[in-house]
């Protein structure tokens, strides 16, 4: 079972639908976590949402508790939430991407996707990862073709994955394949 933690976003249920194609999904508001469901889950997903990771201390707590014990996936804010817990700074960017389709490029450090492959993806983010960033076992595996901003990471030791873009958006082509790959990793 996949447990989706909703940060009151208007895209969370697109995420739920997309993951439902592969497994049972339970989705709860971040402030109303069902601990027994959370414990039963094999995978935890941190949803997109407004604001920044520091606004969601409860989600940070859950991440730290289950890191290494369950597969963890973060999307948009969720991506930032995980990196924030790993010591990253999440900062405002000069150009803002809301409802924007752009191309991302897979680099050498990806274990799941072929190096050099490009994906068209949908983006909805005001904030971004401040670089340089380094954390043990974490690799930035996709970047925006134009700006170079970090678009995905993999931690294949602890099975933690994240996308800054929205694989569930209609603007992301082949989003289903991206999710299938990380779920079967």
């Amino acid at each position: 079972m996949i447990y989706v933690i909703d940060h009151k976003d208007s895209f969370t249920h697109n995420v739920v639908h997309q993951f439902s194609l592969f497994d049972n999904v339970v989705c709860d508001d971040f402030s109303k976590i069902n601990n027994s469901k959370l414990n039963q889950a094999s995978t935890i997903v941190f949803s997109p949402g407004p604001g920044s990771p520091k606004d969601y201390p409860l989600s940070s707590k859950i991440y730290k508790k289950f890191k290494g014990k369950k597969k963890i996936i973060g999307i948009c804010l969720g991506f930032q939430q995980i990196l924030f817990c790993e010591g990253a700074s999440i900062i405002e960017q000069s150009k803002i991407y809301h409802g924007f389709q752009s191309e991302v490029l897979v680099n050498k450090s990806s274990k799941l996707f072929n190096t050099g492959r490009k994906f068209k993806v949908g983006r909805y983010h005001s904030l971004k990862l401040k670089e340089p960033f380094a954390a043990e076992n974490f690799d930035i595996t996709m970047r925006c073709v134009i700006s170079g901003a970090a678009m995905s990471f993999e931690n294949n030791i602890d099975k933690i994955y994240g996308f800054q873009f929205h694989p569930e958006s209609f603007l992301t082509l082949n989003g289903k394949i991206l999710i299938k790959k990380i779920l079967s990793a």
Partner: protein
Amino acid sequence: MIRENYLNRINSTNKSFIIYKTIKGFDLFTDFSKKITLNNKNIIKFLNQKHKFKTKYKDTDLMIGFFGYELLNNLIGVKLPKQKSINFPKGIFYKPETKISLKEDLIYQLNSSQKIDKKFKINIDLKSYTKIFNKFKKKIRSGETYQIKICTKYKNRSSIDPLDFFCRLTKSNLAPEAFMIKDKNFSIISCSPENLITKNGFKISTKPIAGTLRKTKNFNKNKALSFFRNNIKETKEHNMIVDMERNDLSRICKPGSVKLNKEKTVEEYKDLYHYVSLITGKLKKNTKNIDIIKAMMPGGSVIGCPKISTLNLLNNQEKENRNIYTGSFGFIKFNGDMRFNIIIRSILNYKSISEISVASGVVIDSNAKHEFNENFIKAKALIDLYK
């Protein structure tokens, strides 16, 4: 077919009635046997009401009316702070006993006297609008909202004949979700173009509009389409609404059934072009109408995104109650089918005051003066009726 002077006759009886656009013309509902004024408490009971199963329903077996903005906020747990209010009902539904089909060309001879003031007062001037605008832009930078609609209100004191206004409005601006309500102490006239919910059995659809273009000479549908496609700001705004509406349908639909049937197409109306998408889905078993309404309302395209945090930002900013504006009008049939629009481009007349609310979106690359004027353009079609 109906005699030509039908509208004159019904208007002179002082009966309450409702007119709602259909594909071919209009339906007029009247002889109301029940009128329910909704509040935050009785709305739950109203929405959960079950009607006896029949193999054949009459075409008046329905409740028709509207949910105001405040009622819909409360239904999804978003609280409004204390606002200036004219104490207009939060929502009203009627049970009609008569339904009459009318042709698209409404014929009505005005014979009552109207007291019309041409001048309107706006509640927010450009200076205060710009201030709010810049505040919200900061909120976009910090990620609290991705798109937010600032509402401005035009008001004046007039005593009007709503049927005359509605007939003239349908001639100047025939919209697919147009409606009017005439009741004893208030009336609503609307040329809403936007369908929020069409539910037939397990099938449900929504048709968000984001992007409006005024018609000019030498412009056609194809040119309008390429205008929208090449306009990055319009495209981004529209994309956001499409993903949000997919999300809202996903809450109540079977996984995998939510489809984007028409992606970013142009619809042509008398004076303007709209940039429209159509999203459909198949409802999960045992989905109740109250679940559908909570998932879909208030309609996202007129609020902004993400819905909850944007509603909170808006509500803390707005000093005046929105009343009907960005609520929904439509009907719930006794067999469970529904049709609801989003109440925009509308006039509310209550206690001899007319109010017209309009809103336009703030995204990261919008411009305060442009959006302020955009609001006026949207209001103008309605203000122009006051002459």
